[in-house]
């Protein structure tokens, strides 16, 4: 079982709200990632980080932002949620690179009404 945790598991909010999805890992991994996944679809990388104070945008354009102030913590923030943001958000980490094994959290299922 991976030591990477996401909260909340489920979130239902109204349009225009600001939300933060939490992701923490206790494995000391430098690399962390956020993926977005719609039901039955592939994962799309939206943000990643090589380490503290490092953040990069992924392949899928996203209105979310991330921060990496501590190695173990990689939160994702939506300043103003919209229905189009409804999706599952998966956080992952790896020891060295994504070229090796990724450890995933259980995900946050976000519904914006």
């Amino acid at each position: 079982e991976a030591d990477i945790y996401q909260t909340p598991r489920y979130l239902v909010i109204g349009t225009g709200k600001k939300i933060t999805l939490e992701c923490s890992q206790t494995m000391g991994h430098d690399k962390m990632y956020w993926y977005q996944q719609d039901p039955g679809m592939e994962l799309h990388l939206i943000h990643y980080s090589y380490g503290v104070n490092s953040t990069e945008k992924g392949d899928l354009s996203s209105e979310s932002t991330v921060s990496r102030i501590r190695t173990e913590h990689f939160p994702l923030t939506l300043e103003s949620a919209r229905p189009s943001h409804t999706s599952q958000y998966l956080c992952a980490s790896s020891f060295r690179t994504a070229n090796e094994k990724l450890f995933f959290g259980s995900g946050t299922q976000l519904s914006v009404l």
Partner: protein
Amino acid sequence: SQQGEEDPQALSIQEGENATMNCSYKTSINNLQWYRQNSGRGLVHLILIRSNEREKHSGRLRVTLDTSKKSSSLLITASRAADTASYFCATDTGGSEKLVFGKGMKLTVNP
């Protein structure tokens, strides 16, 4: 554009049968990985095969890689109901820190 694509998109078998899933990709890779996702959960890493390897085993899993055909297959032998899940291939195309995932394949193992 999508790099990996699993085939078939869905497979339903009986417990004890073998399940074979295929993944095709478009560009050259450093390695290819297979992941499993149970409904509503995160992904779990199953196995990684490097571009210079042709076959790898892990328990009931067997993965093959044919770089000339740009394809990989995942074989699950003696399947169990607990193997019911979606299976994804993911490719590392090199030169980046990013894995590219396919759309996944849903496997149902009936007891």
